[in-house]
């Protein structure tokens, strides 16, 4: 590669770029190379105003192969998954899906994941669900359980051992 980023001296990672493009293809999402940087995604980005996420710039850096810069930045974790960028992209590109791919790469590389994502994963692995059944408060401050309302038992994996086995294998998989 004869292109050097003089601003941050970052090296392009062409193989990682290719991996992301392959993932997008498998998940039936558009190839990001078609992006022509109109900025419509950032103009309507729900996370931009509050957290300065710039989806068009994510795609620009991806096109350039500067994946390290992306996966090392917390900015990729600011997406609200509102899907407006994907819905409205004039080239059918899905910045939101690129962000999912990048976050997956961070997780796969063993880097620390921000917030509660590890907890979500642990919960699903061990219980099959995001959270345990909760006791809730009513508006007049009474505490109620699901059964108190006459609701049936929650549905969750029956054979937890089997379920966990399957998930542990899956957790090592890539798209």
């Amino acid at each position, binding site marked *: *590669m*004869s*292109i*050097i*980023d*003089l*601003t*941050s001296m970052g090296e392009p990672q062409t193989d990682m770029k290719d991996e992301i493009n392959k993932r997008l293809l498998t998940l039936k999402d558009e*190839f990001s*190379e*078609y*992006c*022509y*940087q109109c900025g419509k995604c950032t103009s309507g980005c729900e996370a931009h105003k509050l957290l300065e996420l710039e989806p*068009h*710039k994510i795609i*620009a*850096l991806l*096109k*350039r192969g*500067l994946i390290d810069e992306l996966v090392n930045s917390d900015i990729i974790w600011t997406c609200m998954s509102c899907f407006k960028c994907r819905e409205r992209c004039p*080239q059918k590109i899905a910045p939101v899906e690129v962000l999912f791919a990048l976050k997956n790469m961070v997780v796969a590389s063993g880097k620390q994941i921000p917030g509660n994502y590890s907890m979500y994963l642990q919960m699903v692995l061990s219980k099959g669900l995001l959270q345990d059944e909760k006791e809730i408060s009513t508006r007049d401050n009474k505490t109620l359980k699901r059964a108190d309302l006459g609701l049936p038992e929650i549905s969750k994996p029956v054979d937890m051992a089997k379920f966990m086995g399957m998930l542990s294998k899956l957790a090592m998989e890539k798209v």
Partner: protein
Amino acid sequence: MTNKIGVFVCHCGINISQTVDVKALTTYAKGLKDVVVSEAYKYMCSDSGANLIKESIRKHKLDSVVIACCSPRMHEHTFRNVVESGGVNAFNLEIANIREQCSWVHNDKEKATEKAKALVRGAVAKARFLEPLEPSKVNVTPEALVIGGGIAGIQTALEIADKGYKVHLVEKTPSIGGRMAQLDKTFPTLDCSGCILTPKMSEVANHPNIDLLTYAEVKEVEGSIGNFTVTVTKKARYVDLDTCTGCGDCVQACRLKGRISSEFDEHMGKRSAIYMPFPQAVPLKCTIDVSTCLMLTKGKCGAGPLCVEACEPGAIDFDQKDEDIALNVGAIVAATGFDLIDEDIVYEYGYSRSKDVITSLEMERLINSSGPTGGEILLPSTNEKPKSITYLLCIGSRDENACSWCCRIGCMSALKQLYLLREKLPDVELNLCYMDIRSYGKKYEEFYRTVRGINSNVFRGRPSEVRKNGEKLVVDVFDTTTGKLFEISSDMVVLVPAIVPRDDAGDVARMLRISQSNDGFFLEAHPKLRPMDTATGGIFLSGSCQGPKDIQDTVAQASGAASRVVTILSNDTLEVEPLIACVDEDLCSGCGTCISVCPYQAIDLMKMDDGKSSAKVNEALCMGCGACAASCPSGAMQQKGFKDTQMIPIIDEMI
């Protein structure tokens, strides 16, 4: 002298009425001497406005009409037809321009209204002295001249010829084909340029109505619409066209074979001193380059010219001379094409410092399979295949220091080349620096999308310079999409250069008496409504000589120009405006001043019966420029419609 005048004031929507008090002006005009009717209307140029004028003419038995409206350049023709159909001679009409010369240039309504009154007062003063005039008729020569044998000239010539008129097609190089013949494939369809052009070239060569004059230049143009006399210089080729078979044996034999830089190959390849520019040349005949041939420059070629030896039919003739021929035509089309910017104007991009910095037109010759490398992409410096190629768009274009305009084909031609290069060199690194991609034509945007998908690196930014760093060419570009500065090292840099008028465009414009816009391209009569016309009657424009165009637009304009020419040639006679010079023989002293100033040789000195001499105007030749009237010391020479007796009352009234 007339005495019943009607004044008609136009609001022009609000163009006039917002600055000029139309009601006050109309009332004012009614009070002027000889004015019998004064009316205002929202759009005088509309059908209802025209009917208002016609009815007033009939009702008030008007002798002359004054219309206060926009510039006569806009609607004088319209209004002449209106008054004529109302029953007044078309030249008993005077226009008071209260839009361009009043409402549009003033803000103060009160003062503007006063000025409008003065303009109308002046127009009425002239109207009192207007005389009916009858247009004269001239015969039309049913032949056309097309200058330039590129795709524009070819298309125009073929379409005129197909309509049954004789066309003289003059091309200054040895073959027709022009820029399009140099190209490999064309965007966005990737048609092979040669495959779609060559049939048209042969059609030109074989068309019974086309007189093809290659290696020839137009030297002089006289006359006017319907009757131009043109002098064409046929340059000596030193080869007899009738005898030469185009076998090319002489080209192979030439002592300077492979030593003369080829213009057709954009100097990427070599030719002989006797040559055919390219294998599909039309006519397929040889030409000897007078500036390099040893016989013609030094008077001897070794023991004897090898070309003569090789030429079996004996077509070579070192005694040939340039020859002038005269043509008579009714209309002329300029299809003289374009040049590329002089790369020294954009010296920072390193064209003159490295052989491996080339233009996109040079790249066309490298890509083309009949080009100097047989279609292989090789570095000019080493003849090796490049591993990386960087394109820089807008070289000199959109640049106030060079060419302020967009070249209109650069983006698409570069995208096309990227596509072709990716096919030819699957592993080459392709980079492109752009500001905007202008892919405006039918299927162009779609092509741009395709190219985005072929693995290239695009940077949105304009590099500042190209540096040579050892073997590599280094370009720094600030990419505004990532907000980063990138350094691109590549083996080859391709500049996509600005498109400029031909360097002799000024001379051609003067010869044809047409104008150039401030960019130097030929000026059309109206950018939207008369894009193929010039302000000079009978002279039309085709292709990039009017401004940069791609092939699609060029062909469209070329067909349009042909249709404009046929509109003239299909008439046996043409009406000519009677606003020409006339002589008061009683006053003329026969001094001949007028003869010396007339640019059209339209005045002769005639002996009168009483023995004295007087100027006489040839009405067919006079263009009504007014030079004679202005220079006449005795006032004998007058211009119809602008006589002293008509103009002086205007001044008297207005001051």
